[in-house]
């Protein structure tokens, strides 16, 4: 891709349409991001950035810190479980959409997109009301029905965070799956049925493999969002709960240790890229049939 762009420039073909976006991102994203991340390699005394010295001590101390690895593991497994839950909820919904008529499609699409019209923070607060103590919607309901004697602890657990993330990120899983499933060629499934393979087996052998592009897109977006989200863990995980993203926030905003925070941000960001890359590679492997040239 880079060589494509370079080729266009050398041949004198226009890249002008991309210039405004490029300048905007350079000024408002690349430069500030670079500045922040560079703090991870600078020793900053009392907020004085001008006299800062280059150092690798934050990198080495962070990587040697057991607490860092424990927090990283928490971020990772919350991200994985939230993505998995999101996928399990989204696939049937997207499938239903693909099988529906116009009215039901419109309803599903509206219900999927409309949560995006409210802030994620607001929706997370709503989960406080739903999962919260004795008077939360779930506990109150269960108590009322006599199914439980005393409230179940739901808030301030890993699962509260996972459920919250799955809900907040659901649209980003549903939309690419809808694209993949609604546009598929139904004759391929008819062919499978015609060859004596039942509906369920056809679904797993034909429908699911052919929706891999949507699955990869959804998993990538939702994992990246869940792995790096810091609001939901803070609100639904409680005081003792922490992830890498929460740590970045606390180091920079609460403890004012910018260098440590920047280093954590760098590690969070780069590891996120690695995972996104791995999902993409796995997807490419599963999709090797879509390449024109095969051996």
């Amino acid at each position, binding site marked *: 891709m880079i060589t494509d762009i370079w080729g266009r420039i050398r041949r004198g073909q226009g890249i002008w349409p991309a210039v405004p976006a490029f300048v905007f991102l350079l000024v408002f994203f690349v430069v500030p991001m670079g500045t922040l991340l560079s703090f991870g390699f600078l020793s900053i005394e009392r907020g004085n950035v001008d006299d800062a010295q280059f150092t690798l001590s934050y990198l080495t101390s962070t990587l040697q810190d057991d607490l860092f690895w424990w927090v990283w593991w928490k971020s990772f497994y919350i991200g994985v479980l939230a993505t998995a839950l999101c996928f399990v909820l989204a696939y049937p919904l997207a499938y239903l959409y693909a099988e529906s008529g116009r009215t039901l499609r419109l309803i599903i699409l509206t219900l999927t997109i409309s949560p995006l019209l409210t802030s994620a923070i607001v929706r997370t607060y709503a989960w406080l009301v739903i999962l919260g103590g004795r008077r939360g919607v779930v506990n109150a309901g269960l108590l009322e029905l006599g199914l439980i004697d005393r409230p179940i602890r739901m808030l301030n657990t890993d699962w509260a965070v996972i459920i919250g993330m799955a809900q907040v990120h659901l649209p980003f899983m549903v939309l690419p799956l809808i694209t993949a499933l609604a546009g598929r*060629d139904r*004759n*391929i499934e*008819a*062919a*499978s*049925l*015609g*060859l*004596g*393979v*039942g509906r369920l*087996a056809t679904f797993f*052998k*034909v429908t699911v*493999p*052919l929706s891999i592009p949507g699955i990869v897109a959804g998993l990538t977006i939702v994992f990246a969002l869940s792995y790096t989200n810091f609001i939901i863990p803070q609100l639904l995980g409680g005081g003792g709960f922490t992830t890498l993203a929460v740590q970045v926030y606390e180091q920079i905003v609460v403890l004012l240790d910018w260098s440590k925070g920047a280093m954590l941000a760098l590690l969070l960001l780069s590891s996120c890229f690695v995972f996104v890359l791995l999902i993409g590679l796995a997807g490419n492997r599963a*999709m*090797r*049939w*879509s*390449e*024109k*040239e*095969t051996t």
Partner: protein
Amino acid sequence: MIEVENANKYFGANHVLQNCDMSVQTGEVVTLLGASGCGKTTLLRCIAGFETPSSGRIVLAGNDVTREPPNRRDVGFVFQNYALFPHMTVAENVAYGLKARRMDKAAIDRAVAEILDLVSLTDFANRFPKSLSGGQQQRVALARSLVMRPKVLLMDEAFSALDAKLRGAMQVELRKIVKHVGITAVCVTHDQAEALTISDRIAVMNAGRIQQFATPEQIYDMPVSAFVADFIGAANILPRATAQGFESAKSKLNGSAALVVRPENLTLRSAPTDAGVEGSVVFARLTGPCVEYEVALKDGTLVRALLDRDRDGAFSVGETVRVDVRNPAACIALSAGMEGVA
């Protein structure tokens, strides 16, 4: 082998199949021929089980399968776009149905190798469909159906995605393969040349009805309606009043409503003669060894005449000519109600 008994199909208020009756013998290749929207694909899908007729019966090999799903009918279906499994290799595509039957692996491998050899695709066994040409994909689709050894092979416009030259070659190839296997096959097409190439019998369909079900020769020589005459080959449909002008063909007309005269059965003469009917040439089109003339008869009827250049000489546009029937015996009389072409 296949009995379609009084099948009707409605899509909402649309009556797309109207009292269709058809009986296909074992080992026979039958084509459903008609323009788009005539119901031919719906009839095929009813035989396959992808659609259920609103009334009537479908009997395959003596079993009433009208309500059976496709996978319980023992039919193979080749889709218009082939519907290959893009995520499986050629060999996996072909083995797919056999695996579902829980055959043992050695037997599957043997059957796959055998059928790929039959369709000349052995070298492509490990390729994915996307890297194959249209003709190769079509043969994979055919192999995938044939390997199941179905009682009946059904094909929906299986050649329409191929370019003209390849199409002709594949039609000949298909007929050879199908006859070699000895399977009963029903194909759907809108292409009369394809129907003539691959079929033992042709069912010409129009507006949801089977108009004529007969051998290609019978359909060409003895069309039962103007529609059939016009659909297979070219035809001049002369209404009774016009046809009476031709002395030679009068006897053939008898009491019928119209006369079908093929363009090659008309002749033009420029010499002053009383034979035939007067007309003037309005258009001439070269088709290789022959020229097709469009002639306006004096009552306004337009007829087409196909003349051999060497034998019959040339006529120019605007020339006044005498049009006559070459061989009155080859004209087809149509009874009342059969003279409409739509």
